């Protein structure tokens, strides 16, 4: 046995954070699958970098089609995020702060697009907002508005897929925020809406920002619902993911270059999220 004094000097000074890691090596049945899993996740990304046509990269990235697709992607993803914010924050508030019959059902319905295959979402959107859709028919005959296969259609398809991310994130933040601040505001004469606007909104702003970034990233990468509902027209509905898919058929080098751009954007989003809102873990 080590004398207590010696053990004390050998031990590293406490830094306040409790040690949680297991000492010594991890058992093989855990270590092996873990390493395989890690390689499985990282290898494709490394392959993308290895096979990247670095020499012809500048030429590929400055071509007008790429810029067109990238611009369209960013514009549509941003618009879809804006739509998600305008509709999603109130929806999240309703779910987090009010009690109404069927609230659980509403919550389940809101979450559904998270697990729904995006292609199915696209088909569903066509059935709803297509020219012969349940609502689209009236939009077409009354207002002359056609949504499928338009840039607006892209935004709608992306918002359909991204909105649940925002609602779930913001609802979680609202639930964690102390509702008594709203009560305090009402005792000072604030209506419920004023209390929401001047107290709750600033308090949950970090959560809303995190939800918006998640929604934006999801919208940027959206493929299935977009191609089903909005089609694949360069300059109008062809976003980056569609361009990547198309390029892969004719020009694999261009596909790799486009993929790298999307990878860079994703890494940037993750870094931003981690540093600003998630905190270092």
């Amino acid at each position, binding site marked *: 046995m080590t004398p207590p004094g010696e053990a004390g000097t050998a031990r590293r000074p406490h830094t306040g954070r409790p040690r949680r890691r297991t000492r010594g090596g991890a058992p093989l049945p855990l270590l092996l699958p873990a390493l395989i899993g890690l390689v499985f996740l990282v290898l494709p990304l490394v392959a993308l970098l290895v096979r990247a046509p670095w020499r012809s990269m500048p030429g590929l990235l400055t071509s007008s089609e790429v810029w067109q697709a990238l611009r369209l992607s960013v514009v549509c993803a941003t618009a879809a995020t804006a739509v998600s914010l305008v509709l999603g924050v109130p929806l999240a508030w309703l779910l987090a702060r009010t009690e109404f019959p069927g609230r659980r059902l509403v919550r389940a319905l809101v979450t559904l697009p998270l697990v729904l295959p995006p292609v199915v979402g696209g088909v569903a959107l066509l059935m709803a907002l297509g020219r012969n859709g349940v609502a689209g028919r009236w939009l077409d005959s009354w207002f002359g508005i056609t949504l499928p296969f338009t840039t607006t259609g892209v935004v709608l398809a992306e918002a359909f897929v991204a909105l649940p991310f925002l609602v779930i994130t913001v609802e979680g933040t609202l639930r964690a925020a*102390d509702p008594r601040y709203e*009560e305090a*505001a009402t*005792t*000072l004469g604030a209506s419920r809406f*004023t209390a929401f606007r001047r107290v709750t909104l600033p308090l949950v702003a970090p959560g809303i920002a995190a939800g918006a970034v998640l929604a934006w990233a999801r919208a940027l990468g959206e493929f299935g619902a977009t191609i089903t509902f909005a089609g694949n027209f360069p300059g109008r509905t062809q976003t980056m993911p569609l361009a990547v898919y198309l390029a892969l058929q004719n020009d694999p080098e261009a596909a790799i270059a486009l993929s790298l751009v999307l990878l860079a954007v994703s890494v940037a989003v993750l870094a931003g999220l981690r540093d600003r809102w998630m905190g270092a873990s």
Partner: protein
Amino acid sequence: MTGDRLTTGTSTGTGTGGPRKADATGSGAGLDARLVVERGSFRLDVTLTAAPGDVVALLGPNGAGKTTALRALAGLVPLSGGHLRLDGKRLDRTPPEARPVGVVFQDYLLFPHLSVLDNVAFGPRCHGVRKAEARAQAAVWLERMGLAAHAAAKPRNLSGGQAQRVALARALATHPRLLLLDEPLAALDARTRLDVRAQLRRHLAGFEAVAVLVTHDPLDAMVLADHLVVIENGRIVQQGSPAHVARHPRTDYIAQLVGLNLYRGRADGHTVRVQDGPSITTSEDLAGDVFVVFPPGAVTLHRERPHSSSARNVWRCEVAGLETHGDQIRADLTGDLPLVADLTTVAAAELDLHPGAVVWATVKAAQTHAYRA
């Protein structure tokens, strides 16, 4: 119903403690409320009246319904029954934002994203005052609270006492006709408490409308309030001036709070027969149902049955527990008459007190106090 019976009971039982200095119902000014709130098996039913300038303390153990009563007054909990009138106006169905009520919450709930100045200006802003004017008003309130130097600070940078004063300023800035304080000193450490209690007393004394504060600390209630309402299990069990309640406790809870041994029994002259217990000889000459109290310090303990003692009351007891109480030892005794006794550490050592020890307790009749139940 229950509230009425208890109120009447109090006023018949006491000369000084029952009637209020002003009857709010008659003049229309002040607070006149019967708060009935039902939630599951819990039922709150309390009647509160107060004139402008009154400070009423709701005192009671945890879960008694004090905070629920406060929230009902603020409109944060709907009434299941009863009524609420403030300065003659019915507020039963008025939403909280339209009530002329200010609340100081237990942990203050200062808006963390706003400066101290904007926290105080929040109320006036909600009442339609322009931004510059609201801030000017807030600055005046902060000046009055001695917090002008902290106007630009964020709430998280304030000490507990400062945050408490900001919360008070924020509540007062809307000129409420009813000020509610939920455990106003509970979040403070012992040293700060002393200062803040004195300051709060000064501010409440200068407040011209009704103030209702909730506390489980009898000292806060005694120092801050001029009328005490004791609530247990959603009902008022006693009310009156703090001094009166302290000297004439009517429930074990209050007796423990104010540190008295309390018994109920039937008096016949100077002798009170305690229910299921021995008799106590008292100095008062009474008849019928009475309460008897005596402080733990009035009890003297002996190892042998005393023969020469002049004390009229002698009971055999067994030590159930001992604990330090300030610079004294408090002995918890069971036996014919369960009681607590205070004695010095030296005396406790000389008596060789330990749990299970048999002792004789004596109390002089002159140190007991009996009053009608």
